[in-house]
């Protein structure tokens, strides 16, 4: 594909609800990352996949957050029992095997928890 795509672009939900955010990485990219960005801050690392497995999930804030990448391509970030503090832009990035340090970001999903 042309770049990393994320859906939905905006999501409004109520406190306590469950949400799923989707990321479609650049075709062929083996590594996939999720970050969260609050207003006026830089992106904050959540989780990194190499292929289908989560290689590093140390950034997930608590067990309400979970992410999967079952076929090594598309990834879904899942948030259970959403809280108002979860409101942020959730960014996905991918990188290739050959140029691992360079991460290509999607446009993000803006999540608002009311």
């Amino acid at each position, binding site marked *: 594909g042309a770049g990393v795509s994320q859906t939905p672009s905006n999501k409004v939900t109520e406190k306590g609800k469950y949400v799923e955010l989707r990321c479609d990485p650049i075709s062929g990219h083996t590594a996939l*990352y999720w970050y969260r960005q609050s207003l006026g801050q830089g992106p904050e*690392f959540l989780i990194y996949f190499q292929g289908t497995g989560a290689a590093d999930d*140390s950034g997930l804030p608590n067990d309400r957050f979970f992410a999967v990448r079952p076929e090594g391509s598309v990834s879904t970030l899942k948030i259970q029992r959403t809280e108002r503090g979860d409101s942020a832009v959730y960014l996905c990035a991918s990188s290739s095997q050959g140029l691992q340090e360079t991460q290509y*970001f999607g446009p993000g999903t803006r999540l608002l928890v009311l």
Partner: protein
Amino acid sequence: SQKIEQNSEALNIQEGKTATLTCNYTNYSPAYLQWYRQDPGRGPVFLLLIRENEKEKRKERLKVTFDTTLKQSLFHITASQPADSATYLCALPSSGSARQLTFGSGTQLTVLP
């Protein structure tokens, strides 16, 4: 864990001048450092990567320096244009993981015509 400080939240300069942005980090010295550009409502876009054994890197009107003694990187945009107005983020690989990036909070640059 790595901590990053970027100079002033906002920087205004006149078109044609050189913009200089600063990134300071604490703790360990990373193997490389990156600069990204972010426009409102968009994801960050990779600009440049400089490795610890490189003092300087250039790409068109962009120049990055990396001083591992001072634990500092400088990012320069020469002959700045209004289209350069954006937030610029510094990023380093986090301690213990070469793949996880730690970002600074960014510097918002405005180039005035």
